[in-house]
C-alpha cells in the first residue's frame, strides 16, 4: 500500500499541464508537499535507525514493477533534497510573478511540470538500485533541469548553455552506462547490487574512476565542471538554487554510493580524489573571485564547495584504505555535512541573488551598489549566507570545515611521509580556499550591497514579496541552528556513515561532542559579547552625539559614485597574482596617432575558463573534421553510383586479402 502511494504523485504531476493558471502553482505545491511527506517519513526513520536493513518498496502493477530502496545514506540525501526543493518552490511563486506578462501559460505549465519532475527524478535517483531504472531517472533529472534552464529560452546564450548542459550530461550518462555494463558483463547483475561482487573479484580503481568520471560531470569536479558556471546563471534563480543546492549533490551521492562497495586499493583512490578535489576547490574559488556576474560568482563558488566536499570524501576513502575508522568517519562526516550546509547557504545566496536580479534587472556587480538601503532584508540575508559559506564561526559552514581539518590533522599523525605531506598540502589549500572565499564574498557583498549605486539602476522597491522572504528566513534559521547546535544533525549523520562503512562511529563521536560543544560555547559567547558591546555602544552613543555627513574623500570633495571601487578593480591585484590560472583578457583598442580627436573607448576585462576554452577547441575541431567528411551529397548522380561501386570494390579487395 505504502509503495503505491509513492507512485501517486507521478501521476498527479501530469495534471499540472492542464491546471488553470490560478490553480497551477498551488496544485504544484500540493503535489510537491505530498511527495515530500511520502518520502520523508521512511527517510527519517531510516536515518534515525541506520543499523536497520534498508527498506524496499515494490511499486507497480502487471506491466512490471519498480523497487524503491531507502537506506540511511539515501535517507540523508532525500531529506536535503526535499527541503531545498520545498524552499525553491515557495520562493518561485514570488520570483516568477514578474514573468506573468511575458510568458505564456503553456510555458509556466511546462516549467512547473519540469520542476516537479526534477524533484521526482532526484528522489528516484536516490532510491533506485536497479541499473536501467537508475539510469533513466538519472537522465530524466538532466532533461527536466534542461527544460527548467530553458525557461528564458528567448536569450541566445540560454539556448547555447542549455545545449552545452544537456550534451555534457549525456556524456556523463554514457560513462555511467559503460560502467554498469562492465559490472554486468562480469557479474550478471545490472545495477548497484552488482558492484559488491565486482569489486570483490576485479580491479577496483579503474571501474571506480569510470563511475567517478560519470558522476563528476554532474557534481562539477574539474575538468568536468564547464557546464556549471554557464547553466546556473542561465536558469531562473530558484532553479539555480535547487540545481546548485541539491542536484549536483546527486553526483556526490553516486560517488559515495560506489565508494561504499569499494574493497581494494581504496587508499590510492582516496589520494587521487583528494588531489582532484583540492584542485577543484582552488580553481573554483579563484575563478569565482574574478567574476562580475553575481550568479556566475556563486556558481563558481559551488565548484569550490564541491571541492571541499570532495576533500572530505577523499579523506574518508584514505581512511578506508588505511583502516583508520576515525579518518573515514571524520572525512565522510565532514564531506556529507558540508553537502547539507552547502545546500542550505548556497540556495539562500541564489535566492537572494534572484531577488536582486528581480529588483534591479541586472546581475552585474559593477553596476550594482548601495542595495542595502533599498532592500535591507535581502542584503542582511545575503551577508548571513556569505558568512556561512566563508565558514565563519558560529555558522554551519565552519562546523563541516573543522571536521575536515580535524580529520586532516588526524591523518597527518601516521607513519608515512607521503600521506603526511599530502595532508599538510590539503590543509594548506583548505586554508587558502578559506581566505580566498573571504576575499570573494567580501567583494560580492561589499560591492553589490554597500556603498553607492555604480550606475543609474532603478531598484523596484516592492520586488521582494514576503513570499520570497519567508523561505530565506527559514533557511537562515536552520543555518544558525546547525551552526550553534550541530550535534543534533551530526550524530545521525555519523551514525549513518558508521553503518554504511561498517564501522563503530562511537569512539569518534565522543571526543567530537566535546569539541563541538566547545565551539558552540564560543559561538554563544561571541554573540553575547557582540550584543554586550552593542548595548554599551547604544548607552554611550547618545543620539545627540551622532551627526551625519558625506564620506571623507581625503580632501577630494568632487567624488561621485562612479569613482567607487568596482568588482573588477577589487579583484584586480588578485587577478595579477593568479593570472596563469585565470586567463585574463583585456579588450581595448589603442588610440592611433592619426586620431586627432579620439572617439569613445570601451575597456573590458574578461576571464575565460581555461578548461572551457580547450573543450571548445577540441569539439570545434572535430566538428570541422566531420563536416569535411560530409561532402558526399554532391547532388551528382554519378557520384551516388560511384559510392556503391567503390564500396563493393573495397569489400571485394578486402575479401581477396582475407581481411574480412
Amino acid at each position: 500500500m505504502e509503495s503505491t502511494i509513492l507512485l501517486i504523485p507521478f501521476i498527479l504531476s501530469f495534471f499540472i499541464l492542464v491546471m488553470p493558471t490560478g490553480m497551477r502553482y498551488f496544485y504544484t505545491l500540493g503535489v510537491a508537499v505530498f511527495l515530500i511527506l511520502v518520502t520523508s517519513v521512511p527517510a527519517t526513520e531510516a536515518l534515525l535507525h541506520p543499523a536497520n536493513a534498508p527498506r524496499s518498496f515494490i511499486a507497480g502493477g502487471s506491466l512490471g514493477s519498480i523497487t524503491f530502496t531507502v537506506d540511511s545514506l539515501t535517507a540523508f540525501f532525500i531529506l536535503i533534497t526535499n527541503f531545498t526543493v520545498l524552499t525553491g518552490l515557495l520562493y518561485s511563486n514570488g520570483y516568477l510573478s514578474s514573468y506573468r506578462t511575458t510568458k505564456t501559460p503553456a510555458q509556466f505549465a511546462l516549467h512547473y511540470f519540469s520542476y516537479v519532475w526534477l524533484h521526482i527524478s532526484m528522489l528516484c535517483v536516490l532510491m533506485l538500485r536497479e541499473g536501467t531504472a537508475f539510469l533513466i531517472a538519472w537522465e530524466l533529472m538532466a532533461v527536466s533541469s534542461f527544460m527548467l534552464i530553458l525557461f528564458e529560452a528567448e536569450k541566445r546564450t540560454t539556448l547555447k548553455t542549455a545545449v552545452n548542459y544537456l550534451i555534457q550530461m549525456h556524456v556523463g550518462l554514457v560513462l555511467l552506462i559503460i560502467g554498469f555494463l562492465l559490472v554486468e558483463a562480469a557479474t550478471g547483475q545490472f545495477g548497484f547490487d552488482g558492484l559488491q561482487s565486482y569489486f570483490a573479484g576485479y580491479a577496483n580503481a579503474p571501474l571506480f574512476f569510470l563511475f567517478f568520471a560519470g558522476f563528476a560531470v554532474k557534481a562539477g569536479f574539474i575538468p568536468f565542471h564547464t557546464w556549471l558556471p554557464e547553466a546556473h546563471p542561465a536558469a531562473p534563480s530558484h532553479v539555480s538554487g535547487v540545481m546548485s543546492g541539491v542536484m549536483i549533490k546527486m553526483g556526490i551521492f553516486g560517488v559515495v554510493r560506489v565508494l561504499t562497495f569499494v574493497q581494494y586499493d581504496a587508499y590510492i583512490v582516496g589520494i587521487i580524489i583528494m588531489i582532484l578535489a583540492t584542485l577543484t576547490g582552488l580553481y573554483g574559488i579563484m575563478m569565482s573571485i574574478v567574476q562580475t556576474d553575481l550568479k556566475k560568482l556563486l556558481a563558481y563558488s559551488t565548484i569550490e564547495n564541491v571541492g571541499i566536499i570532495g576533500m572530505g570524501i577523499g579523506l574518508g576513502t584514505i581512511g578506508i584504505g588505511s583502516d583508520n575508522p576515525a579518518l573515514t568517519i571524520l572525512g565522510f562526516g565532514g564531506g556529507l555535512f558540508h553537502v547539507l550546509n552547502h545546500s542550505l547557504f548556497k540556495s539562500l545566496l541564489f535566492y537572494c541573488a534572484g531577488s536582486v536580479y528581480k529588483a534591479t534587472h541586472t546581475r552585474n556587480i559593477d553596476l550594482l551598489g548601495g542595495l542595502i538601503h533599498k532592500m535591507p532584508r535581502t542584503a542582511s540575508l545575503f551577508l548571513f549566507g556569505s558568512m556561512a559559506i566563508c565558514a565563519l564561526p558560529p555558522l554551519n559552514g565552519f562546523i563541516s570545515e573543522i571536521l575536515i581539518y580535524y580529520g586532516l590533522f588526524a591523518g597527518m599523525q601516521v607513519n608515512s611521509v607521503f600521506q603526511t605531506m599530502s595532508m599538510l598540502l590539503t590543509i594548506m589549500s583548505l586554508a587558502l580556499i578559506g581566505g580566498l572565499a573571504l576575499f570573494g564574498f567580501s567583494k560580492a557583498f561589499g560591492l553589490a550591497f554597500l556603498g553607492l549605486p555604480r550606475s543609474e539602476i532603478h531598484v523596484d522597491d516592492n520586488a521582494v514579496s514576503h513570499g520570497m522572504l519567508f523561505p530565506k528566513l527559514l533557511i537562515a534559521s536552520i543555518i544558525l541552528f546547525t551552526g550553534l547546535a550541530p550535534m543534533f544533525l551530526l550524530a545521525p549523520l555519523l551514525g549513518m556513515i558508521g553503518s554504511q562503512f561498517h564501522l563503530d562511529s562511537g569512539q569518534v563521536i565522543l571526543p567530537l561532542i566535546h569539541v563541538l560543544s566547545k565551539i558552540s560555547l564560543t559561538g554563544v559567547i561571541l554573540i553575547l559579547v557582540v550584543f554586550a558591546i552593542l548595548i554599551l555602544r547604544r548607552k554611550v552613543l547618545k543620539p545627540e552625539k551622532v551627526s551625519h555627513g558625506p564620506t571623507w574623500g581625503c580632501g577630494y570633495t568632487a567624488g561621485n559614485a562612479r569613482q567607487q571601487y568596482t568588482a573588477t578593480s577589487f579583484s584586480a591585484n588578485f587577478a595579477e597574482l593568479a593570472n596563469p590560472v585565470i586567463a585574463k583578457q583585456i579588450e581595448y583598442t589603442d588610440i592611433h596617432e592619426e586620431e586627432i580627436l579620439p572617439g569613445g573607448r570601451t575597456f573590458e576585462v574578461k576571464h575565460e575558463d581555461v578548461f572551457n576554452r580547450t573543450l571548445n577547441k577540441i569539439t570545434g575541431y572535430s566538428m570541422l573534421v566531420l563536416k569535411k567528411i560530409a561532402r558526399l551529397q554532391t547532388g551528382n548522380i554519378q557520384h551516388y553510383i560511384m559510392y556503391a561501386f567503390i564500396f563493393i570494390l573495397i569489400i571485394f579487395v578486402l575479401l581477396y586479402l582475407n581481411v574480412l
Partner: protein
Amino acid sequence: MNVLLIIIFAITLIYLSMTERFPIYAGLIGFQGALLFVLSFIELHAITPVTLIFVALETLVFKVIIVPFLLFRIISKTGEARVHDKAMPGFYSLLFVTLGLLLSIVVSFSMNTSPANMIYFIVAFFAVYTGLFMIISHKKIFSHLVGFLVIENAVLLLSLAIGSEMPMLINIGILLDIFVSVLILGIFVMRLKQSAHELTMLKDD
C-alpha cells in the same frame, strides 16, 4: 558456340566504353539484345517450350526492337549525337575497363565455379563493372540509361547461365525491363535535354 557469342558480347562492352557516339550506343544495345536472344535459344533447351517462347519473344521484342528504337528516337529528338563532356577521356576509361576485365577474371576464378559457367561469370561481372563505370564516367543521362541497360543485360546473361535449372529466375529478371521503360519515360518527361550535372538542385555539400 555460346562461348563465341559471349566473347562477342564482351567485345561489344569494350567498344561501348570507348565510343562517344550515341547511335553506336543504341546499336550496340540492340546487338547485345540479339546476342542474348540467340544465347537463350542455345542455353534453354531443357526448359518448357512455353517459358522458352516467352523469354525469347520478350528478349527479341523488347531488347532488340523497342529499346533501340526508343534510343534512336531520343537521339533524333535531342539532336546531339555524341558525348560532349565525359568525366574522363576515352583512353583512361579504356584502361579502367580493361582493369575491370582483369578483376572480373580474378573474381570468377577465385569462385572456382564449374567450367561451363566460368565464361558467364567473367563476362557478367565485366558487364556489371562496365555498366557502373559508364554511369560514373558519363555526365549525360542518356549514357546513364545505357549503363543501366548494360547492367540489365548482365543480369540476363547471368540468369541464362542457370536458366536451364531454374527458368523462373529469368522470368523475374525480365521485370527489370519495367524500370527501363520507366527510365526512358522519365527521359522523355524531362524534355530530353538535361545532362546529369544540371540535375544538382538537391544537394548539401
